[in-house]
C-alpha cells in the first residue's frame, strides 16, 4: 500500500501559471496577497486542489533580468508582470487529486520554491492520502512535488494490498512517529515507536523499513534496533526481524528469544509463522514445559 502511496506523490508541480476558479477574489496589493473565497479550484498540469478558501502570497518584487538588446518583450512577461506566487494556503475541506490518487485535509500549504505541499487536519479528521482502497493518514503529510517523496508525522497506515494472500487478506496496520516514503528506492522508512499490527500479532520496534516491488506490492519489512513480538500468550524478542510478506513469516535474529506459556527458547534464529503460529528455531536451546500445553488443540 505504501508503494501505492509513493506513487501518489507523483503530483510533481509542472512549471507555468496556475489556473484558478472561485466565487470571489480579493486583491490586497499592500499585503502582497490575493484571497480566493468560495468553491476554490486550483489546477496545474494533472494536479488539482479544491477548498473553500485560499490565500496566494506573492514573492517580493525582484529586479527583472536584463533583456538582450533588441529582444522584444514576450507575451508571458506581459501576463505576469514579473510578480509570482511563492506560497498558497488552501483551507476548508481541502481535496487534492493527481490522476487516480487523492488526498484530503483541512488545510494545505503549497510552497512553490520548496516544491512541497503540506496537508494538515484535526485530531478528529487527520489528513489522508488515498489510492483506490489504500489509505495513509497522519498528523501532517508533506508531499514533495519534485522528488515524489512523502514525509509523514505520526503516520497511520493500513497495508491492505501489501500481502499476497488468497481470499480475505489480513490487513497490516502500522503506526509510528515518523514516515518517509522514498519513491526512487521503493522504500518506506518508519522511525520512532513503530507498531505493526496484523491479526492478533503486535510487533514493536524503533525502526522499520518496508520494501516494495515495481508494482507497489510489499515484499519485506525490516525491523531494526530491538524487536518485541506479542501474539496471544506468545512473546518473542530479538535485535532485528525481517517479515517476508509472501511467506508471512517473521524471522527474528540477534539473540532471539521466544517465551510461550513457560517455554523459553533461544537460538541463532527464530522463524514465526504468523498464520499457523508454528515456530522454527535454528541451533535451538531452551526450556520446554509440555504440561503447560495440555488440552491445547493438537496436543496428545
Amino acid at each position, binding site marked *: 500500500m505504501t508503494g501505492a502511496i509513493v506513487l501518489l506523490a507523483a503530483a510533481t508541480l509542472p512549471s507555468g501559471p496556475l*489556473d484558478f476558479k472561485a466565487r470571489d477574489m480579493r486583491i490586497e496589493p499592500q499585503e502582497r496577497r490575493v484571497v480566493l473565497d468560495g468553491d476554490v479550484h486550483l489546477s496545474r498540469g494533472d494536479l488539482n486542489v479544491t477548498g473553500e478558501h485560499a490565500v496566494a502570497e506573492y514573492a517580493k518584487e525582484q529586479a527583472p533580468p536584463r533583456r538582450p538588446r533588441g529582444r522584444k518583450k514576450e507575451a508571458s512577461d506581459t501576463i505576469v508582470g514579473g510578480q509570482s506566487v511563492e506560497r498558497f494556503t488552501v483551507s476548508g475541506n481541502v481535496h487534492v487529486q493527481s490522476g487516480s490518487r487523492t488526498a484530503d485535509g483541512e488545510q494545505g500549504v503549497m510552497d512553490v520554491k520548496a516544491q512541497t505541499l503540506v496537508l494538515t487536519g484535526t485530531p478528529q479528521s487527520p489528513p489522508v492520502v488515498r489510492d483506490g482502497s489504500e489509505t495513509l493518514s497522519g498528523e501532517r503529510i508533506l508531499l514533495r512535488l519534485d522528488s515524489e517523496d512523502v514525509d509523514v508525522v505520526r503516520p497511520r497506515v493500513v497495508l491492505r494490498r501489501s500481502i499476497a494472500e488468497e481470499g480475505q487478506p489480513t490487513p497490516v496496520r502500522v503506526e509510528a512517529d515518523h514516515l518517509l516514503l522514498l519513491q526512487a528506492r521503493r522504500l518506506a522508512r518508519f522511525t520512532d515507536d513503530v507498531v505493526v499490527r496484523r491479526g492478533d500479532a503486535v510487533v514493536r520496534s524503533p525502526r522499520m523499513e518496508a520494501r516494495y516491488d515495481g508494482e507497489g506490492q510489499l515484499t519485506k519489512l525490516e525491523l531494526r534496533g530491538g524487536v518485541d513480538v506479542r501474539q496471544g500468550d506468545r512473546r518473542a524478542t530479538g535485535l532485528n526481524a525481517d517479515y517476508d510478506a509472501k511467506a508471512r513469516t517473521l524471522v527474528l535474529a540477534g539473540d532471539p528469544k521466544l517465551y510461550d506459556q513457560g517455554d523459553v527458547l533461544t537460538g541463532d534464529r527464530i522463524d514465526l509463522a504468523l498464520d499457523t503460529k508454528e515456530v522454527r528455531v535454528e541451533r535451538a536451546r531452551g526450556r520446554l514445559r509440555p504440561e503447560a500445553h495440555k488440552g491445547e488443540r493438537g496436543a496428545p
Partner: protein
Amino acid sequence: MVARGTADRLDYHRAGARLQASRGGGVIQPEPGSRLAAFGSVRFVADRVDGEIANRKGVASGAVRVDAARGDVARTDRIYYDGDFLRSDTRVDAVGPGYRVESNGLLARTDGSVIQLTDGVKGKLQMEARP
C-alpha cells in the same frame, strides 16, 4: 487624490455640477502613502462618462479601461462610481503583476484598500520560478 482628464466632447452643467463626456479619459494621482499609492497613477478611458461631481457619483460605460502604473489593466463595459466605491455588474477582465482574471463583477474601494472581483472568477496566477 488628484484627478485630471480629457474628452472628445464634454457637457458640463454647472447646476448640480453634472458632466457628460464622450470618449473621456483621466488620470488619478493617489496621495503618497495611501493604499491606492501601491498602484501608482491610475489612467482610465471610456466611451461615455456621466457624473455628478458634487455628489461624487458617476458611471463610465462602453469599453471602459483602467490602467495602473503598477501594471494592472482592467477592462469592463460599465462601472459605477459612488463616493468611496467603484462597482461593476458586467464582465471584468483584469491583468496585473502575477495574475490574469475574469469575473462577472467588481467592487473596489477608491482608496485601494479592497479590490474584489465577484460573482464567479477564473484566471491564472503566476507561480514562482523553481530555483
